[in-house]
Each structure stands twice: as C-alpha cells, then as structure tokens.
C-alpha cells in the first residue's frame, strides 16, 4: 500500500505554499503600488499650518500612506523627490512650489479662492487635469446667504463693501443672495477714498453688513471704524473668521485649519487609491463652524439660534 494520502497531502501543502507565496508577492506588489508618501508643504512653522499637518498625519496613520512635513523656505526638488502628491498649505507654500521646474500633483489648501483663480491655478498648472486642485478657505456665497436667512430672518438687504479688485464677484454674490430672497446693496471702494463714506451709504440701505475677506476693506487698521460705524447704524456684521467674531461681528461662518486638514486628508486617501493621483475639482470647505458673539447679539437685541443648530441646518442643505 502506498501512501496516497501522504502524497496528496504533500501536493496540497505545496499548493498552499505556492498560493501563500503568490499572495505574499501579490501583497508586496500591491502595497508597493498603493502605499505612498505625501509631502505636506507648509508656508512656515506657524500654528495654523502645523495644525493642518497634524490632522493629515493622524488621518493617514490609519492608511498605508505616509505624510512628510516639508517647509517652503529653501525648498528643493529633492525634498519632494519620492512624493506622489504635494499638499501645499497656504499661499506661501504654493508659491514656493510653483517656482520648482517640476513637481508632483498638487493639492493647494488654506488658500483664498480669488488667489487660486487669478494666480495659483496658472502658476501651478499641471499637465494632467486631475493633477491639480484646491480646497478654498472661503465659504461659498450660497452657504452665507442661507446662514443669513436661518439666523436673521428679518434681514432683507445685505450690504457689502468691496475693493475694485473684488468687484467681479458681485454677480455671483447677487444670485446667491437672491436664491434666499435677499437683495444686495454694495459699494465699490475707489483707491484713496475714505472708507467711511461708501460704508455709510451701504449701511443706510442695508440691514446687515456682510464682511468679505479683502485686505483693502477689512484689516487690522480698518476694523475699528468698520465695526463702530456699523454698530452705530445698528447693522450687524456677518464675518468670515473666528477672530472677526471676537472683534465685534455678530456672527461668522468659517472653516478652521483642522477642518480643512480633515477634508484634505479624505481627498488624499481617495485620490491615491488608483495608480495615478486623481484629485477632485477645486472646492469650498465641506466642514465649517458658525461662531456667535453673544455680547454683540445682546447689545443689538438679536436672539439667534445656537451655533450648533445653525451648523446642523447648514450641513443639511449642502
């Protein structure tokens, strides 16, 4: 009697080993194809950029990918050599990246939309359509308009003060407001003009001042006269940052570096699933917060829904 059983068993074992080897090989091959290095390029070592990096790194820790921190200052092509994707955090980082002759696919985050459309997109230009994208720091006008309707249902006319550079966004803003039954009152600042005159013209007509990020309008030096004047007209200000709320805006709609970092990390992990990096088209932040200045609300006599309620209702619509 031979030992057919033994021989069969041996063959079976061989097969298993072969299969195992194949599996391991396959695993090795496939992991080589998927696990990759993402360079997170920071404009400098300031807190907001570091926050973004920390969020991306923590998120990627649960994936095969790895995040490496690189600084814009003294950036060399070698520093990005083995990166499959560069996340440029801030305009400074994106500018440094644009100066390199060759670069991997780029995701620009924490950048203003107007900068990206006017400058960034062209300078970071990529051969592949899916190899360049951005997550803006701005909130979409639709979301701001909806917030006004949810938080301040009595507001009908929304006032905006713009520098000439930003005046191109009037149409877009107007249609977003109109969709919520709001009308736009705006004034354009001519260079060297006193801020107060056009501001008063807007405040006289408007029920609310919508602050848009524009260094020629809202900055450290103009904040005082803008807030005091709108307060005098009893017109609340809707701002775009937590610091604006703290300074005197009734409420603001904004995304924190951590929220943008989270969205970037989600984009990265899905963009790198295939063999080539395929980024979604540029978009507004999907995570955001509402902050309310209770003291201002009280003084102006506004009763607003809680921040969390507003956030939830805004998310429901977006």
């Amino acid at each position, binding site marked *: 009697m031979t030992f057919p059983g033994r021989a069969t068993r041996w063959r079976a074992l061989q097969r298993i080993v072969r299969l195992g080897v194949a599996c391991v090989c396959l695993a090795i091959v496939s992991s080589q194809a998927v696990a990759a290095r993402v360079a997170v390029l920071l*404009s400098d070592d300031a807190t*907001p950029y570091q926050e973004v990096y920390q969020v991306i790194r923590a998120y990627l820790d649960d994936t095969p990918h790895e995040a490496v921190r690189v600084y814009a200052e003294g950036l060399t092509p070698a520093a990005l050599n083995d990166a499959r994707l560069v996340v440029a955090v*801030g*305009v*400074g980082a994106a500018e440094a990246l644009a100066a390199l002759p060759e670069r991997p696919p780029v995701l620009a985050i*924490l*950048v*203003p939309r*107007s*900068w990206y459309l006017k400058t960034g997109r062209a300078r970071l230009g990529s051969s592949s359509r899916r190899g360049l994208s951005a997550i803006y*720091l*701005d909130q979409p006008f639709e979301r701001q308009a909806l917030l006004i309707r949810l938080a301040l249902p*009595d507001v009908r006319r929304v006032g905006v003060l713009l520098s000439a550079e930003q005046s191109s966004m009037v149409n877009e803003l107007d249609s977003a407001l109109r969709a919520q039954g709001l009308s736009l009152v705006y004034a354009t600042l001519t260079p060297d*003009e*006193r*801020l*107060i*005159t056009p501001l008063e013209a807007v405040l*006289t*007509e408007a029920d609310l001042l919508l602050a848009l*990020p*524009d*260094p020629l309008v*809202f*900055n*450290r*030096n*103009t*904040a*005082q*006269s803008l*807030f*005091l*004047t709108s*307060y*005098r007209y009893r017109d609340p200000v809707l701002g*775009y*940052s937590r*610091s*604006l709320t*703290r*300074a*005197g805006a009734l409420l603001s709609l*904004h995304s924190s*570096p951590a929220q943008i970092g989270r969205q970037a990390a989600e984009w990265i992990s899905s963009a790198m699933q295939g063999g080539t990096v395929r980024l979604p088209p540029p978009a507004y932040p999907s995570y955001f917060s509402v902050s309310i*200045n*209770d*003291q*201002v609300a*009280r*003084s*102006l*006599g506004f*009763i607003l829904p809680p921040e969390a309620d507003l956030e939830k209702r805004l998310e429901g619509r977006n």
Partner: protein
Amino acid sequence: MTESDFLDDLPVVLSASRLSQPVSEAPVAVTVIDQEMIHASGFRDIPDLLRLVPGFSVAYTRDNTWAAGYHGLGDAFSRRFQVLVDGRSIYSPHYGAVNWTDLPLSIDDIERIEVVRGPDAAIYGANAFAAVINIITKTAAQVAGEFVSLQLGEQGMRGATVRHGGGDGALRYRLTASTQQRDRFERDITNKIADGAGDNGQYFEASKTTFLNGRMDWQLSANSDAMAQFGLSQGDWSAGKQVNDPKGILEPRTQDSRAMYLQLAYHKVESARREWRLQAYYAQNRFDANALADLTALGIGAVNVDQYLLQTRSNIELQVNEQWRPNLRGVWGGEVRQETVTSPQNYNSGREWSGELARVFGNLEWRPHERVLLQGGAMLEHHYFTGIDISPRAAANFTLTPGHVIRLGISRAYRSPTFFEEKGNQVYVLQSGAVADVVTVPSDGLAPERVLSREIAYVGFWRPARLEMDVRLFQDKIDDFIGQDKYDFAPSDDGGIRPNEFKYANIGSARSHGGEIQLRWRPVHALDLSAHYSRVFLEAHFGGAGIHNVINFNKDVPVSAPRNTWGLLASYRLDHGWEASMGVWRSDAMKWLSEGDLTAAYNRMDLRVARRWKWLGRDIEASVIGQSLLGNYQEFRDTNIFSRRVYGSLSLGW
C-alpha cells in the same frame, strides 16, 4: 490676498465695556441720543439735546450757564446730575453745576449720549442722583479725513469747526478746533411791569467760546489699546445788565473763562471673559469776572466785585468687566479723586479748599432663567464732607415674550454737598477791603441729600414694525434736601445790599411720582421718529431743626416740575439727498428754583431742511434751521426771551 487675511487676529473693537447695554436689559431707564437724532434736531449746544429725553427741563440761565432739571428741582446750578464725557466727570465741585459752556467738545464729535433717567449711584457714585448723562465721543478712527462745519444765523449765531482725523495703522488721532458765538436772548426787555419795572432794561448776555480738542487712539495689540485726550477752551463772554434796579451793576459785564483737561486711559481685553480699563484725568476750570460797582447812591460805597473761581479735579479709576459663567457677569472697580476750589469772594478767604474722595463698587448680573435677569450692586464711598455712604441698587427684568420686558427697580443714592453749599461764605467787599455785605454764611455741616427711587417699567420692541417703546412709572423720596435758609445770620452785618443772609441747610424733603413714555419708530429707512411724554407730581415738605425761613420751599419745589412735558422729533429723507426734520417741544409752566422765575408754559417748534451731495469728492451738507418758529418763550427767567430765529449751516467732509 492670502490666508492671513482670514486667519490673522483683529483687535477687539466691540468689547463688553464699549457695547451699550440693551435698553431692555438695563437695570435702569435709559434714553440713547444717537447721531441721527442730534443731526435731525438742529441743536448746536449739547445741553439742548436733553430736550430729547423724557422728563427733562432745559434752560439757559444767563451768566453763560445752563440749567437742567429732571422731574423738577432744577436751579441755576443743576446740582443733581452726574455728567461724564468718555468717563470723565465734568460737574463742578464748587456749585455742582455742569460746565457746559466752557466744555471743549464739539457737538460734531459726539458718537452718542446715554442718559440714565433716575439715580444710578451704585455704578456712578454720589451725584448720580437725578440722572446720569454719559457722553461718548467718536474715536479717531471714525473721523479720518478733514471736516469743516460753519453756521451763521440770527441772534449772533456763529460757529466754525475744523477737524482733522489722521494717523494710520495702529495710531490714530483727531484734532478739532472750534469757535462758537451765541447771543441767546432778546437784549431789550420792556415787558416787566409787575415788579415796578426794576428788571426792564438791557441785558448784555452773549458768549464767544473758542476751543481745541484732541484725541489719540493707539491699538497696542489685538487685546490692548490706549487713549489720550486733551482739551483747551477760552471763553470771552458778555454778561450783566443795565436795568432800572441800581444793584444790576453788581453783575460784571465781561466774563473770562479758561478750561483745560488731560485724560489718559489704558484698556486691556484679557480674554472673552475679562477686560479692564484704567483711566486717569486732570481738569481745571478757571473763571474770572470783575466789576467796580459804585453803589454810593445807595449809601454802600464802591463795591469791588471779584467772581474769580478756580476748580480742579484729579481722578484715577479702574473698572473691571467680568463674565464668570454664561449667565453670570459682573463689573467692579474703584476710584480716587481730589477736588479743589479757590474763590475769595465766595469763601471770604483766599485759601484753596481741597477734598479727597475714594470709592469702590461692584455690580452683579445674574440670569437664573432665560426670561429672568437679576441685577444688583452697591457703591461704597468716602466723601470729604460726609464720610462713608453706601448706595445700593437692585433690579429684576422679566421677559414676557422676546422683546417685551417688565422691569422692577429700587435704588438708593446720595448727593454730597458741594464746597459752596458746605463752606460758602459769599461776601461783597468794598474797594477799601472792608466787607460791604455778607450774602451767604457757611453751613453748620450738611448731611448728604438722599433719594430712594422705585420704578416699574415696560420696555417693548416690535422688530417687524421697528418700534421701540419704553414706559416707566416712578416714585422718588428725597430727604435732607439741601437748600438755602434765609435769615439774619450775621446781625453785625449792616445788610447794605441784602438785609438777610443765606445759609445752606438740610431744609426738607420732596416726594415725586409720575410716569413717562418714550418711543422710537423707524418704519422705513426714510423715516425716523422719536417722541416722549412725561407727567410728574411733586410735593415738598419743609422741615428740619433750626430752619428759619424757607417759606418758598413748600410753594416753589412742587411747581419746579412742569406737570406735563412732551417732545417729538421726526426726520424724513427724500430723494436726491434732501432731508427734512421737525422738532416740537412742550412744557407746562414751571418754577426754576434759586434765581429762576416762574416761566410760562410754551410750545417750541424747530424745522430743518437739509441737502447732502457730493462735489469734487467732498461730502457736502447744507441746511437751514428755523428755531422757535411758534414765537417767543421764556427760559429760566421771565426776562430770558427766546425768540424766533433762523440759521444756516454748511459742512464739508473729505
């Protein structure tokens, strides 16, 4: 544009101390006079703006001073108000009156005025007795650029104001220079027959005041800022009269005033829960008026009238605003002050009188339920004449439905005697140096006046109709009222000019009750309407140990409050920059105390038509204002005739 435009810190502009408390949540009744109202009223003198506040009586007394009363008790010295300009107290330590005429502040530089109707000593200290008038001026950042404003009109109305707002970045300043001329009343008086025509004649009252005022705001960081202010004024005033009564010449024909102040403040926002402000100021008011009155014909001799008066105030204070929990907030602080007065004729002595006062205060605001707000606190102060007093206050605000609030309040306040009330020893001195006549003898030591004020109020706001309404019923009990007792206190005095002498004493008590209502209605952007009505019942009870002759007290004090007063201010904005406004003020007859007369009931109507336009990049406003268009009325004295008049105003800004 970069991300830093989103992420950078901005200075905290509307901090808790800079925001005004909403009227519905205040523990006291508040009237806010904003720039729209100031503009629409056409008034160019700050005290006139008090006509916009329910229950107030305002009058120019002559002698380049203003009188104001809230629910009566107004006299030439208006002693019962705390008046603050950016937190700097401006009432006089000598008389207690407010130095309105020499105040180096342009009405164009006022941001808003918040008037607390009723006592609020728990926050503002003694003298916040009848009301608190809080003037907030514009910061340098609000008035960048150039501004020129000119007025020209009847009754010697002249005004020129020039302002420059400069600086950039964190350091900004404004500088205002102004000269104002007024000739308020009719000069020739012939209508007085009743008193033997002694008051008929010519009155020379006219004022010309020139001032310079500057403010610097320095944003040191996102969380701290500093403010510095100064002001200088010089008044070349005419006064006096030439009347049938020969003693009229005791009033000097020219008056010279100089005032100055310097104010520094540091403000720090430590966190969203805590901020503090440290402020120091020094103010000096100097007044001089002399006359040599030859009363030889009356057998008195040549009297050397010397009204020199020098007053100073030095003050340092700290105020801390805190929020411990979302529903528990507080404000506390302390203040140290020195006041000095020098006036040889008023004190029969060349010495400088000086006193120091110190105070600490704390107030809590607790919201145990979203519809209930409880506020309470007290001021503990040590005054140089009257020692330690505690002024407490408590209020409860109940929200019936959002925007509709019922308030119950009770408040105790004191008014410390002024230097003149306590130590005044006014004498007329002959050229030889000998005393010709004693007018006032020093008091025997005064207790502070005290008031217990109770109120029940309703504050309503209909947002869709844009209507704000405020109704208040009040009851005030004033005790130890400080007034003048008239008697022959100095028998050795020959009484050449006045046979008897005055002495300040705690002469009685007063009780008042009544109601008032104010509303503001802005139904459409073009229309802004504010109105108020007040009805007051006041009674007086003469009484006090050793009081001789205050027979007028029981008679005069009750009529010092006009029974009914009301006011209406409406402005309408038309197309092409045109704007029209109308103010109507009505007061029943009233008696102005101490040196005032029984003045007849009056209706006063002012009209203003203005147009704004742009010319070569400048904002221009031209307006014509007609005042007292219904005809003459009397202010303070029955010889002070405020007649119909018109003035024009032109302002340019760029």
